[in-house]
C-alpha cells in the first residue's frame, strides 16, 4: 500500500500533467482555426488552376509529344511515393496512420516487383519510414523550423520532383497524405500526381462554347509552364491539409489526455481518502485497546 505522502505526490503530478495537456489543447484549437482558414484561402487558386488545366488539357491531349508531367514516361516500373506527415508528435495516431498507410503501399508495390522510392515531407514521416525503408529514401524535407509553410516551400518540393522526372528517375509519382475530412476525422489517402489525371471535363455541351480559347504563347508552351505550377499547388494543398489535420488530431488527443488525467485524479483521490480513513481507524483501535488494557 502506497503511503499518504506518495499518493499526494502522484495526485499533484497528474494535476500538473492535466494543466499541460489542457493548455496544449487550447493552443492546438487556435492553430487549427488558422490552418483551416489558410487551407480555405488557398482553394480559389486551386479551383481556377484546375479549370484552366481542364481546357488546356483537352486541347493538347492525344498529341504524341505531350509533356511528361501530364502523361508520365509511359513506364510503370519505378514508383516515387511522396509521404506528407506532421513535423511534431503528440497528436494521437495522426502520423502513425499515414506512416502505416505508406508502409502497406510500399510493401504492396514491392511484392508486385516494382522499385519504390520515398520522398518524405515532414519530420515524422522520415522518422517512421527511415528505419525500415532507409535504402529507398531519395530525400526528406522538413518544415520543423518554420512557423508558416508557404507556397514557395511546396514549389521547392515540386521542383525536386520535376527534376527527378526529367532525369527519368521514376515513372509514377503518388502523393500520400492525411486527407482532412473534418476536425475529428483524417483519413490517410493517396493521390496520383504523375501521370496526372486531368480534371474531368464537364458535359461537352456545357463547355463547348467556352472551349474556343486563343492561346498566347501556344498551348503546349503554356501547358509546360502550367503543369509544374499545378504540381506545386497539389503538394501545397496536401501540406495545408496535413497541417490542419495535425492540429485537429492534436486537439482530440489532448482532449482525451485531459479527460484521462481527470479520471486518474478522481481514482487517486478516492484511494488517498480511503488510506487516510484506514490510518485514522487503525490509530483509534490502537488507542482504545491500549485504554482497555489499563
Amino acid at each position, binding site marked *: 500500500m502506497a503511503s499518504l505522502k506518495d499518493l499526494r505526490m502522484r495526485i499533484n503530478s497528474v494535476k500538473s500533467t492535466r494543466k499541460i495537456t489542457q493548455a496544449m489543447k487550447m493552443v492546438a484549437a487556435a492553430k487549427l482555426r488558422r490552418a483551416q482558414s489558410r487551407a480555405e484561402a488557398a482553394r480559389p487558386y486551386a479551383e481556377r488552376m484546375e479549370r484552366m488545366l481542364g*481546357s488546356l488539357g483537352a486541347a493538347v491531349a492525344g498529341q504524341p509529344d505531350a509533356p511528361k508531367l501530364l502523361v508520365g514516361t509511359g513506364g510503370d516500373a519505378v514508383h516515387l511515393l511522396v509521404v506528407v506527415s506532421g513535423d511534431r508528435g503528440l497528436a494521437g495516431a495522426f502520423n502513425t496512420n499515414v506512416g502505416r498507410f505508406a508502409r502497406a503501399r510500399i510493401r504492396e508495390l514491392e511484392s508486385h516487383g516494382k522499385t519504390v522510392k520515398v520522398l518524405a515531407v515532414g519530420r515524422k514521416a522520415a522518422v517512421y519510414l527511415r528505419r525500415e525503408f532507409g535504402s529507398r529514401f531519395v530525400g526528406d524535407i522538413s518544415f520543423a523550423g518554420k512557423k508558416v509553410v508557404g507556397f514557395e516551400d511546396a514549389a521547392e518540393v515540386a521542383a525536386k520532383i520535376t527534376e527527378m522526372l526529367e532525369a527519368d528517375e521514376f515513372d509514377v509519382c503518388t502523393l500520400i497524405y492525411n486527407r482532412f475530412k473534418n476536425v475529428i476525422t483524417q483519413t490517410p489517402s493517396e493521390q496520383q500526381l504523375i501521370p496526372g489525371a486531368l480534371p474531368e471535363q464537364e458535359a461537352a455541351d456545357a463547355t463547348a462554347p467556352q472551349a474556343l480559347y486563343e492561346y498566347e504563347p501556344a498551348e503546349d508552351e503554356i501547358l509546360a509552364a502550367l503543369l509544374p505550377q499545378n504540381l506545386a499547388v497539389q503538394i501545397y494543398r496536401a501540406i495545408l491539409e496535413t497541417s490542419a489535420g495535425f492540429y485537429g488530431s492534436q486537439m482530440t488527443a489532448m482532449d482525451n489526455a485531459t479527460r484521462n488525467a481527470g479520471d486518474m485524479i478522481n481514482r487517486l483521490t478516492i484511494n488517498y481518502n480511503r488510506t487516510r480513513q484506514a490510518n485514522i481507524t487503525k490509530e483509534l483501535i490502537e488507542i482504545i485497546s491500549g485504554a482497555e488494557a489499563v
Partner: protein
Amino acid sequence: MATFQLEFVSPEKLLLSRPVEMAVLPAAEGEMGVLPGHAPMIVALRGGVISVTEDGQVTERLYVAGGFAEVTPTRVTILADEATPVAELSKTDAIERITAAEAALLEAQDLSPEKREAAMNRLLAARAMLDAAQAA
C-alpha cells in the same frame, strides 16, 4: 461604363474579386489591355505590373512575378505566382533579386536551353520589379 469581373488569386489567397472597367496585363508577348467583351484567351504572364482601371482612373497597380490569365468576355482570372501592390515594393529587395537572378543565369549558361530561358525570365521579372519600384 461596362465592366467585367476581375479575379486576382495567388496560391495563398484570393486578392481581388470585383467588377472593373479595364485591366492591363503584362502578357508574355507584350502588354495587353483587356476591356469587357474580350475574346476568350489563355495567356502566360511575365514579371510586370498589372494595372486596374475603375471609373476612368487607375485604382490598383500590382506587381506580379509571373503567372497565367484566363480571359473570357465577362471575366478575367489572373493566377499570379506572387503579387505585391506596387506601393509596397522595395528597391533594395528588387536589386537583391536582380543580383541573385544574374548569378543564377551565369550558372545556367552551360545547362539546357530551357533552364537558361527560365533563369533569363527570372532576371527579366526582377528587372521589371525594380522598374516598378522606381516608378512608384
